């Protein structure tokens, strides 16, 4: 297939038949992985019937073998079981943090986009101050004040992603606000809040869904980062970041202790990103 054919194929596709209903290999793989990850989070016992906290000191530091597919850690716990049971932490933290970030972003973005120049100016300057901090630094600051733990880590990640969402939502609102159907609603005498709820917000929410899917991947990585630094889940919780941190000490002698949790962090983040981009592409064509 030549480049030319690809190009014509693509343009023909977008022009005529809308989005491709065919799934790419990456998308199909991501879909299957996402299903598996959700299954691990909801019914971990189905995939790994063992107890993630069960110690067995006499079989510590076993490399991957038939009995322990991913090997065992320093206390003889089965790493496969722990990785599967750890999915729920990562997915819940990722989803909750994204929800917090998006929620705050919607509130701030709506305030800025809808309530006139003074508020818009204030909120924008406030967001710029937050942007001056790298997101992770903001999360660290929050944890220093409120103490480490899963809940604070989740809120911290949510808070530090909020400014980005707020900006995008504000931009989207302003675009939608100047559309003809909004002007029509104004002419018809609808109140500002009716217009916001009935016309503007529904039209900004679709891109938000894409953002959220992409954001979950990022939130999972950040939450794992915080646990890795000892600021999130506490040992011996089977959380991927905490497991990665525990394995770091033994990286020269027991690579599997950090490899498998690390692999799953990467797989989850990539899955969320591939799915997010795929949804994005499809929605643009609708």
């Amino acid at each position, binding site marked *: 297939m030549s480049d030319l054919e690809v190009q014509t194929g693509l343009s023909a596709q977008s022009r005529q038949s809308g989005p491709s209903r065919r799934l790419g290999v990456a998308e199909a793989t991501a879909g299957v992985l996402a299903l598996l990850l959700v299954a691990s989070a909801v019914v971990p016992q189905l995939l790994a019937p063992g107890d993630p906290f*069960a110690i067995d*000191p006499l079989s510590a530091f076993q490399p991957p073998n038939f009995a322990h597919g991913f090997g065992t850690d320093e*206390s003889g716990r089965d790493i496969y079981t722990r990785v599967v049971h750890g999915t729920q932490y990562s997915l819940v933290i990722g989803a909750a943090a994204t929800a917090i970030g998006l929620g705050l972003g919607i509130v701030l973005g709506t305030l800025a986009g809808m309530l006139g120049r003074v508020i818009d100016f204030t909120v924008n300057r406030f967001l710029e101050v937050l942007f001056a901090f790298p997101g992770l630094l903001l999360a660290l600051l929050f944890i220093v004040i409120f103490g480490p733990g899963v809940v604070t880590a989740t809120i911290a990640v949510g808070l530090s992603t909020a400014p980005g969402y707020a900006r995008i939502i504000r931009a989207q609102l302003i675009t939608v606000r100047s559309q003809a159907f909004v002007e029509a609603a104004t002419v018809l005498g609808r109140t500002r809040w009716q217009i916001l709820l009935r016309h503007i917000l529904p039209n900004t929410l679709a891109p938000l869904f894409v953002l959220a899917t992409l954001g979950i991947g990022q939130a999972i990585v950040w939450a794992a980062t915080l646990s890795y630094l*000892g600021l999130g889940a*506490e040992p011996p919780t089977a959380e991927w970041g905490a497991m990665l941190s525990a394995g770091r000490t033994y990286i020269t*002698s027991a690579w599997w202790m950090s490899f498998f949790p690390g692999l799953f962090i990467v797989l989850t983040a990539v899955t969320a990103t591939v799915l997010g981009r795929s949804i994005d592409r499809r929605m643009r064509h609708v």
Partner: protein
Amino acid sequence: MPTRPAFHSPAPTGTPARTTSRCTTRALGSLAGLVALGLLVAGCTAAGSTKSVGEPKSGGTLTYASGDAEPSCLDPHVGGNFPQALVSAQYLESLVSRNSTGQIIPWLAESWVPSADGLTWEFTLRDDVTFTDGTVFDASAVQANIAHLQDPTTLSSTGYLALGKVTGTEAVSPTVVRFALSEPDSALLESLSQPWLAIESPAALERSQDDNCAAPVGTGPFIVESWVKQNAITLVRNEDYVSPPADAGHSGPAYLDTVIWRFIPDSASRYAALQSGEVDVIDNAQPDTIVQAEQSDSIEELDSPRPGSSNRIELNSGQAPFDDVRVREAFIRSANVDDAVSSLFQGTATRSYSALSSVEPTAVSNAALFAYDPAAAGTLLDEAGWDETDADGYRIKDSVRLTVEFPVSTNQSIPAEQSVFEQIQATAKATGFEVKLRPMDLSSWYAALAGNDYDAVSAPYTKVGPDVLRILYHSDSIVPAPSGYFANLAQVDDPAIDELLTTAATTADAAERASLYSDAQDRILEGFYILPLYDQQNHFLLRSDVIGLRTLPTVAVPTLYDAWLNR
């Protein structure tokens, strides 16, 4: 200049039987036919080197990488912690030292005589020693150092506490200094042997504290040349050095030209730097890297447990649930420590059953008290009234769950040790204890202790000699210091133990003193206040071409005085 053979008898460090036997086995292979046992011992204690290495060579630069925190002050009088002791042993020296059998030996002081009532001590000093800034070492220098340690503005903690009974000093002559005590102190010599009570130049002490912290001046084999914070301390050889301790391997100046003292907190990076030859010696070696190093020809191990207390979990007997001795015993019986230690330390640490380090000759060990016995633990809990179980399998009494708050300082416990705690948590759960491990940074950890917000804690204490028992288990130590810290974290409040420890601290007769400490330890162990784990681990790894490295038997810090590079 002529050098004495590079061996010394008796063996200079408190090397435990395991390492020595490993060395000996290897040494027997390569040194078959050699008759001198002394050579065997030297081969092991000089960092396990078993090759015939010939005459020591002068010159070269040795790079040491420490996993301990970088000190904020290089003068160990200020504060007084282990990282300071590690580096200051290279440039500062004490009045006396200790040999591997626990006897006090001469260093800057040649001899000493206590008075009959034990209230005054006269130290006769060496008359040929000069500080590296040219100041003469004499009785007035010792006086200035004691005054500096006791001056509240110095902010000394370790040294200040060790001199608690010293009321004054007097220069009888330039080479004789007299200490006056408020009551007899059988631990005085042990206290003075510690690096935190080293003698510095009185002229240097008159500088501002910041200047003295940056470059303390002593009589040691090396001189602090520069200190680039967050990077490295550079030490250069003291060419006029004359005062090694009585158990050193040679006399005259050190062999090494320069020592670069670096800080690499991450254990994996530290070991990688050693493997690549970027550094020559590392401390705080982790169990898995020690095991790896055993298979390597280019890396040797030096194991030298710290003196003072063993590493143990203290159970807070001052509040529920551990105010009941049956619950304390139940916890101890429910914890499978042996399997945890063997899986995590992989043979590099030996289980302890004592309140004291195995290098302390007065240590009392009682393995029978600490056997893993979950059935007995369950019965004890039944007797103590914790006879119901909730849905999660934890014991309850009056609908309160049997919970053990366990704050863990991540700065003070290596990862393998934190995993030991996790395994204890898992095995104690089977009996019905809910152990809540709380990893935290040092300041939060101190706050948890000061707030009495703990049921179990691990806080090893390093001090030369059995007097550490008084600091750790006398009821006076429950009263917090102005800083808020108190050392009796088990909150042992037993008049009989107090009486034994107070008497021992004023008893000069060695046999009687040892017997008093032995009785006190029996009572402490039988009261189930502590769960001993192992000695305070102190493993060094070094390139095998580093010869002659040993640790001072006082607090087991390395000394680079006898070390040389065989390259």
